[in-house]
């Protein structure tokens, strides 16, 4: 229904904007409806990293696009927050500064949500209270092994 989508859209928009600014350490972003028909209009991401001009997602860098998408994912998650959240290598294209702010947001959300995250990134490994290693010493057969930070870095080939 039109009313229901409008309501969802506005909520996601406000939460997306807030998370974007926190993840980028500045700048702004919003969702834009492409067209007037609320039942049919597509949605576009408008994004302005700190110091830059607002533009559609396409002109942004690989890392900037990914971080913008993470802001949207966390906003969508917050609509219907599950007790746990699993993240598979979402930090892969991010540089050190962006990973730092990403980890800060996850640490903050972890007060209410249990996070299980797969990563190759050392800074993200440092966020974990516990690190689980997965190995394949026998070809094709996976095993679980408990690891500390140094073992994790070596194991992941990070």
């Amino acid at each position, binding site marked *: 229904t039109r009313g229901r989508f409008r309501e969802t859209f506005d909520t996601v928009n406000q939460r997306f904007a807030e998370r974007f600014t926190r993840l980028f350490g500045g700048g702004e972003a919003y969702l834009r409806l492409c067209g007037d028909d609320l039942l049919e209009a597509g949605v576009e991401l408008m994004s302005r990293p700190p110091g830059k001009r607002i533009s559609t997602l396409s002109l942004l860098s690989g890392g900037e696009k990914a971080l913008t998408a993470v802001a949207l994912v966390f906003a969508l998650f917050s609509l219907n927050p599950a007790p746990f959240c*699993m993240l*598979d290598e979402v930090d892969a294209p991010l540089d050190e500064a962006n990973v730092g702010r990403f980890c800060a947001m996850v640490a903050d959300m972890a007060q209410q949500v249990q996070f299980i995250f797969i990563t190759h990134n050392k800074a993200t490994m440092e966020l974990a209270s516990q690190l689980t290693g997965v190995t394949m010493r026998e070809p094709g057969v996976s095993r679980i092994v408990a690891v500390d930070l140094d073992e994790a870095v070596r194991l992941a080939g990070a």
Partner: protein
Amino acid sequence: MRLSRMRLSGFKSFVDPTDVTFPSALVGIVGPNGCGKSNLIDAVRWVMGESSARHLRGQAMDDVIFSGSTTRKPVGLASVELLFDNSAGRLQGEFARQAEISVRRVMTRDGESKYFLNGSRCRRRDILDVFLGTGLGPRAYAIIEQGMISRIVEARPEELRGFIEEAA
């Protein structure tokens, strides 16, 4: 309702019975390419009722059963059991008072799945009902798989609208 533990056997590359524990709110999973990390994510999705092979990176549903390696023969059965800590009492209905909830799925080569709640046989829809209202549906944003971020980045306006509608 935290995850406390998962047991896999015959599921993708986890052919031997394997225990994975999740004792805290921030659990990191690490390892080299192809060692099985994303397979753990598939296992959680699968045990909670995933019925589309595509969402498990396969082409047929029995692609999740261990299909062999150079040192091991294929097996005929995959089993994943997930234990939830419900001490915060977040679940509704008949399980509201249980401190621990176990959800288990077993599948054989013929593609037939059996589901179990706390050890008792049940239907797939009973599993889905347990998670109703907890934010853990089949299309919830609780599981962000490898490639999800690029899918959002590459999404056309009508597809992005779809993502928002799904989350509502």
